[in-house]
């Protein structure tokens, strides 16, 4: 990341946006990053790029296309979804960030970013979980345990409790319940996890009954 790179061929411009801004090199072969936090409150751009052009491009890429607001809205929800599925906080963040990087690379062609990022993040986490299991011991999917040290300290007590209840469900139910509470229908869940909708409905029913019982016994 460049914070104040400058030299022949670079000129000062007023930052029009806060945060990191992308510019092309003059030869168009690579991309550079500058920051509005550079010394003197300026950013630097190639001399050959007109101010208006640079402004239009950065505005379109970082604001107009909605990725920034999408990231702020969806990233946290994705991390929470994966933690509810049994991921540690670190694994959830890895998978969510991987999905966001891929989304940014293809942003212009993604029609439903919510569903796209959720799908990529969930599959990345499940793939990672499978790899970890196969390294540790060849366990059946139904025996998949949530991360022993999930690092949930960032959440308030009541939210930790709900996350712990979800994470305490059997693996199949846990994944389905987490996706259901993230807003997916049984049909969408079935498509994502590769199970018939009837199976999803059945497992969701078991999960809800378990959760209801646990919450009733806990006085919630």
């Amino acid at each position, binding site marked *: *990341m460049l914070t104040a790179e400058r030299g022949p061929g670079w000129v000062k411009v007023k930052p029009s946006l806060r*945060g*990191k801004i*992308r510019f092309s090199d003059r030869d168009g072969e690579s*991309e550079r*990053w500058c*920051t509005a936090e550079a010394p003197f409150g300026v950013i630097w751009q190639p001399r050959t790029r007109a101010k208006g052009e640079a402004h239009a491009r950065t505005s379109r*890429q*970082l604001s107009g*296309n909605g*990725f*920034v607001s999408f*990231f*702020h809205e969806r*990233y*946290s*929800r994705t*991390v*929470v*979804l994966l*933690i*509810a599925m049994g991921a540690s906080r670190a694994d959830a963040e890895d998978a969510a*960030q991987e999905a*966001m*990087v*891929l989304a*940014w*690379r*293809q*942003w*212009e*062609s*993604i029609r439903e970013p919510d569903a796209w990022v959720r799908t990529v993040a969930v599959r990345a986490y499940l793939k990672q979980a499978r790899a970890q299991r196969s390294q540790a011991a060849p366990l059946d999917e139904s025996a998949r345990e949530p991360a022993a040290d999930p690092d949930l300290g*960032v*959440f*308030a007590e*009541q*939210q930790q*409790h*709900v*996350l712990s209840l*979800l994470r305490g469900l059997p693996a199949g139910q846990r994944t389905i319940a987490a996706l259901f*509470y*993230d807003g997916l229908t*049984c049909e969408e869940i079935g498509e994502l996890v590769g199970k018939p909708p009837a199976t999803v*409905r059945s497992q*969701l*029913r078991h999960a*809800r009954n378990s*959760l*209801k019982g646990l*919450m009733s016994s806990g006085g*919630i």
Partner: protein
Amino acid sequence: MTGREDAAFAALDAHIRAQLTMAAADYKSHTDLQALLAAVLESGTRHDDGPAATHS
């Protein structure tokens, strides 16, 4: 999922969804999302063609 079944679990579902929404808000408030966003954008752009390209 039948409507009757959904109704039976309505309170449970609402409670869990509300807690997960609050958990996301908690996480957001404890995380430097601006720095993360910068890292995501930088990592995505380091790839040779960046977001302007349309490939899926």
